[in-house]
């Protein structure tokens, strides 16, 4: 296959894929008798047309950054971690246990502790499939998928039988103490000038951005990152270089699971203030699309997470303000994933005709 210049690979391919997904979505909307233009306008207005809309878009994006980074790190080691959903739910359990353990005086103390809790639980949940892959050769895709179901069952058990306060009707933990409340963008001095209404986006956003930077450092500036990338591209070559497949598999998956688990500071700690069933709400799966579209690079993950935040929030607005069913949000997301992920090579092959390779080094 023709190799594209970097800018085309990074900018042009996702852009064209998006336009294609948009075009098909428009046809679908048109086919159910609605106006595609009106739908687009509603989505844009609702998701990015106001600070209030941004407050939701960024809230979703924060979760997607964490899960997108989780998939990215594993992917660089050639491990397809489908288990972000389960790891995020377990992370939620970790966050909840930390938040409920002490009467936290202030969020600046509660947040680092909750981060450790979430990361540890997420990592632990990823550790089992990682070990099975590294030592027993059980395929990580299969095991991580299955661990999503086990996680869901485990959380329900924990909520119903262990953590639910006596007398409460719904399967959820008690509310976290007030000292664990994370400031939303509306509550942060300076930001409240822009976000004049209460929004769910909170300080976790900054943790997510910091995580992007850290993961970039990890992958391209540390020995472990070098080993992860080398192992991911060629296991035989990694063995030649004396890189331990076991070590790299374990570390990559532990970091991946920790990132997925960290997502829970955004939704569990920041937004709901308690742990409920199905807390990750599919963000673990969206992370796969985010990483794919973001080319497994933290900057790409950040941009793709914003896009999917937009789709989430814009889609919700569609259901609210038009007669277009909210399920259409799923259709649009599906098309975006289909085109940016699965059919990405189609665009690439098409573009390849315009960018012919220039071989170098004729000796």
């Amino acid at each position, binding site marked *: 296959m023709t190799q594209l210049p970097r800018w085309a690979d990074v900018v042009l391919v996702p852009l064209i894929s998006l336009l294609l997904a948009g075009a098909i979505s428009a046809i679908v909307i048109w086919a159910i008798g609605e106006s595609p233009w009106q739908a687009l306008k509603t989505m844009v207005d609702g998701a990015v047309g106001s600070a209030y809309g941004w407050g939701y878009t960024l809230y979703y994006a924060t979760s997607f950054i964490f899960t997108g980074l989780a998939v990215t790190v594993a992917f660089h080691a050639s491990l397809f971690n489908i288990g972000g959903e389960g790891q995020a739910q377990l992370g939620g359990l970790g966050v909840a246990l930390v938040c409920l353990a002490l009467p936290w005086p202030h969020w600046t103390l509660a947040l680092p502790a909750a981060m450790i809790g979430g990361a540890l639980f997420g990592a632990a949940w990823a550790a089992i499939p990682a070990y099975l892959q590294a030592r027993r050769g059980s395929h990580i895709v299969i095991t991580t998928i299955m661990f999503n179901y086990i996680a869901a069952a485990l959380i329900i058990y924990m909520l119903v039988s262990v953590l639910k306060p006596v007398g409460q009707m719904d399967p959820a933990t008690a509310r976290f103490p007030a000292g664990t409340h994370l400031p939303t963008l509306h509550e942060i001095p300076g930001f409240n000038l822009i976000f004049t209404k209460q929004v769910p986006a909170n300080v976790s956003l900054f943790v997510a951005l910091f995580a992007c930077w850290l993961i970039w450092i990890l992958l391209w500036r*540390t020995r472990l990152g070098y080993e992860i*990338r080398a192992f991911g591209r060629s296991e035989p*070559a990694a063995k*030649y270089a*004396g*890189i331990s497949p076991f070590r790299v598999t374990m570390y990559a998956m532990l970091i991946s699971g920790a990132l997925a688990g960290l997502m829970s500071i955004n939704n569990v700690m920041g937004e709901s203030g308690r742990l409920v069933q199905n807390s990750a709400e599919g963000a673990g799966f969206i992370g796969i699309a985010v990483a794919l579209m973001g080319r497994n690079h933290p900057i790409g993950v950040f941009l793709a997470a914003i896009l999917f935040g937009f789709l989430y929030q814009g889609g919700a607005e569609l259901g609210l303000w038009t007669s277009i069913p909210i399920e259409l949000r799923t259709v649009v997301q599906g098309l975006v994933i289909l085109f940016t992920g699965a059919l990405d090579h189609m665009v690439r092959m098409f573009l390849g005709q315009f960018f012919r390779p220039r071989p*170098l080094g004729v000796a």
Partner: protein
Amino acid sequence: MAATGTTSGRQDTAAPEGKAPAIELRGVSKAFGPVQANKDISIRVMPGTIHGIIGENGAGKSTLMSILYGFYKADAGEIFINGQKTDIPDSQAAIRAGIGMVFQHFKLVQNFTVLENVILGAEDGALLRPSLAKARRVLKELAKEYGLDVDPDEVIEELSVGHQQRVEILKALYRHADILILDEPTGVLTPDEADHLFRILRGLKEQGKTIILITHKLREIMEITDTVSVMRRGEMTATVKTAETDPEQLAELMVGRKVLLNVPKGPANPGRVILEVENLRVVDEDKVERVKGISFTIREGEIFGIAGVAGNGQSELLAVLGGIMPATGSIRLNGKDLDLTGRHSDGQSRRARGIAHVPEDRQHLGMIMDFTAWENMAFGYHNDPAYQKNALLMNNAAILEDSQGKMERFDVRPPIPTLAAKNFSGGNQQKIILAREIERNPDLLLVGQPTRGVDIGAIEFIHKRIVELRDAGKAVLLVSVELAEIMSLSDRIAVMFDGRIMGERMPEDTDERALGLLMAGVGGEGA
């Protein structure tokens, strides 16, 4: 590379025998973007001859043959088959025009029988039985006519490489090919198998078939072809009668400058023993014993060459020494045991002990093709303290600078460390790996197939560097399937067959034929 004038230029003589050429190309050009792979190529291949096409990697041989076989469409130029102007839009058209191709990598279904492979894609109808019966008859005739003996009911994976190649030839003949194109046919064969192939080709020629042989091996050209065309950088630089040329002239035409075909090297000065291997046994993941108890020693200032057909345990031997596979037995380096199974049997520990490894398969083992040249320069040595900024971060700038120097000293072209490894030619990829391994100044250098897929110009350079390391008093273990390379580089030669060393010879006391017999498992004192 200085552009030198061609000695004989493009031949444009009329057909001497008054026959139309079997193949004639006129002014064929093909560009891939800005790269001109074939420039205005004209060539005549006379019927009933063996015509060699020789050139370095990337000279445009494969592109030209792909045009002839309908894989690519030429941008300009005309193709004449037996005097008829012919369009070849796809390989079906090439087959109809009587052209058959034997690829370097066989295109056979491994778990089909010979017969099934031969008729694949040439079935006469929906029912297989009549096709199979017909093919069986035809194969019998072909076998008689050309000495192409293959059991039609044998399953492909049970056949030796040489026999598989015969099946490929049979496939072409079954499709009524009058013109056979063979792409690097001897790359995978033992000298004996190659000889047998040449006998078959001569037989085909006598029956009036036309054969085009693509190769980079000068010896084969001299041995079997009638006419040879030389390609360089997309151009046909010369077409000469084989009888009227010699290897030195052909090498010069290929590279564009004088080339030393034999490495100038002084006598070896073997010193103390560096490596002692004793009763080494290697069992692979499928529980097959690949190395069956071999012993040898290598001294400092000595190149120890291991000859053998690929797959006789040489790769596993390198893998054990390089820390990729576990083994039993004992290996001592500088008098101290190497860990063969435990924690210190990995590649990092081997490097720490002073073993450098240029692996046989550079693209799958030796480097990461997607990594840049500088990232590859640190590959395996990424824990080197000189490459670290602090306890956490690597010092990429330092690696980059180090790489720049290494690339210049090893004449890697282009000397741009930020370029991805896959963008370098095979020879330059190999130079990157050699620079990385040799500049570590190892006590023992393991080199597998140092010049596989490498251009003649780079071969010369690589051989020189290996000899220089020997002259600096280091031990070198050379594994190669190229007998000529083993003969010219080694100070001592061992031949491996079926996991055993069949015997050790001094290069001055032996010849290719004797080694070839050992390679086939005949004679020898080992076992």
